[in-house]
């Protein structure tokens, strides 16, 4: 996904002299070509995430379309107030592109884990929150949104899913429909595990690229079913429940506890029940138990 981000932004920058790239000392070598071609629009500004956001807001105020790129917890959790005040409240848009969401940097421990970003950013007025799950989705969504003047968060991952999913901004995708009365909803790279778990199970499966705006129509389509949100972050479940009067439950991040295990993303996912086998077991149990089991 990161390579696709580089390819897409580089192509756009060649045609758009208002596109500016601000790095927080991450992905620097990846963007060497960009730096050579557009030295006046490439800034590896430093490890100073608050200022990266504020400066992007300032650039935006003067008609530029900035991309700020660095690691997820630092640019979202650390800089939440800059995003709230300088971008959202002031209505100075800009593109925030993170890498290392959820447990992508599992081995680095809890300081580098980031599963609140989608949840906290979706609460900010005017903010768009995207979680593309593949390179194709990155390309389509970045092209579509980067110039719309809104504060937009793109959460990339180095662990994309390998599924070719239709991608249209703001539209959820129904990947399968079943008869059990259970609908599994997910977003982002975790789709790989969820689809593997549910491929031959009798459930509906809905996938989202966008946490905000959430596709209300596709949720309403399944409003009479039991909904199980399976996700490796906060935010999607809350977005789904914002529809109201749903019977929905959540499986993913443990309640009120840090995930302090090292290892790889697959290790942490397995530990918290987000590997394909664990997801399959939970979904199968809900199918067997009927609608009340999901509550």
């Amino acid at each position, binding site marked *: 996904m990161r390579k696709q981000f580089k390819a897409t932004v580089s192509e756009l920058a060649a045609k758009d002299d208002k596109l500016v790239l601000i790095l927080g000392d991450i992905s620097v070598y990846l963007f060497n070509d960009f730096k050579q071609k557009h030295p006046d629009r490439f800034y590896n500004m*430093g490890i100073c995430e608050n200022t990266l956001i504020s400066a992007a807001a300032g650039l935006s105020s003067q008609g530029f379309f900035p991309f700020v790129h660095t690691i997820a917890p630092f640019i979202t959790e650390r800089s939440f107030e800059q995003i709230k005040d300088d971008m959202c409240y002031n209505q100075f848009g800009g593109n925030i592109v993170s890498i290392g969401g959820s447990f992508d940097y599992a081995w680095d421990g809890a300081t580098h884990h980031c599963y609140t970003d989608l949840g906290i950013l979706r609460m900010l007025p005017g903010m768009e929150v995207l979680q593309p799950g593949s390179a194709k989705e990155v390309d389509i969504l970045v092209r579509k949104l980067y110039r719309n003047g809104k504060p937009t968060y793109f959460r990339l991952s180095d662990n994309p899913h390998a599924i070719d999913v239709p991608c249209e901004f703001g539209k959820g995708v129904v990947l399968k429909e079943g008869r059990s009365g259970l609908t599994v909803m997910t977003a982002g790279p975790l789709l790989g595990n969820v689809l593997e778990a549910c491929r031959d199970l009798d459930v509906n499966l809905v996938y989202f690229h966008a946490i905000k705006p959430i596709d209300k129509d596709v949720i309403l389509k399944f409003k009479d079913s039991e909904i199980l949100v399976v996700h490796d972050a906060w935010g999607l479940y809350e977005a789904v429940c914002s529809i109201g009067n749903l019977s929905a439950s959540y499986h993913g991040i443990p309640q009120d506890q840090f995930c302090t295990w090292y290892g790889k993303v697959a290790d942490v996912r397995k530990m918290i029940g987000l590997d394909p086998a664990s997801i399959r077991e939970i979904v199968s149990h809900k199918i067997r138990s009927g609608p009340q089991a999901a509550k």
Partner: protein
Amino acid sequence: MTMDPVCRQIRVDILDASRESGHGHIPTCFSIVEMAYASYQVMRHDPKNPAWNERDIFILSKGHASLGLYCVLARLGYFAIERVKTFGAFMSDFGCHPDRLKVPGVEVSTGSLGHGIGVGVGMALAFKISKSPRRVFCLIGDGEANEGSVWEAVMVAVDRKLSNLTILYDSNASQMRCMHLAAPAGRFKAFGCDTVEVDGHDAGALAKALKAASDRPRVLVADTKKGFGCKTLVENVYEWHRRSPTEQEHKMLLAELNAQTI
């Protein structure tokens, strides 16, 4: 030297609006009057066309001095001073921290401290990329400089050689009971800024210092007094930090202001 008559009138406006509205950070507003007024004397701006695309930018990063900025903008012709007297009221455009979408001339909505320089860095960078002569002026408080984001943004400004960014540092000793930053000019110099110290209540000296060109971000460390112009305010800063005068106090403060010679 006597107080600039426009700056004296702006202080009268501040007292009147505070009295009428029941709100006000009067001492801190009095602290910034000459700095804000002098900035607009050297800036390219048009009160009749606040969105003029060749204008210079003024950011009041210490947004709690908004009443001071409103009164400066009113005297410059951005809007009628009568509108400011709704200060802080429900449905007023003139809040106790400024909203750029409501008040003509306000460039950045501020309030939480430590944001202005960072946004100014982005604006100054935009003007550099565009090869525009436009400049950015950002007024910060010395209490605000407790925030790490101030120094983070200063480091970026210096690293990017943003010579079109000028920081006005309101050195009014507001943090004596907390974390007072001694010798601020030395700190900004150490960070690589072109730094000068100036009397923050001498509008002429401020304007002269603001006009000077540099090859780096420029910082004016302005020696100021909270409540400058009224003896009662200067001597009772904490008591008056966030209060509005009674009718009797209002008369007393106006009398002190009118008697003031520097």
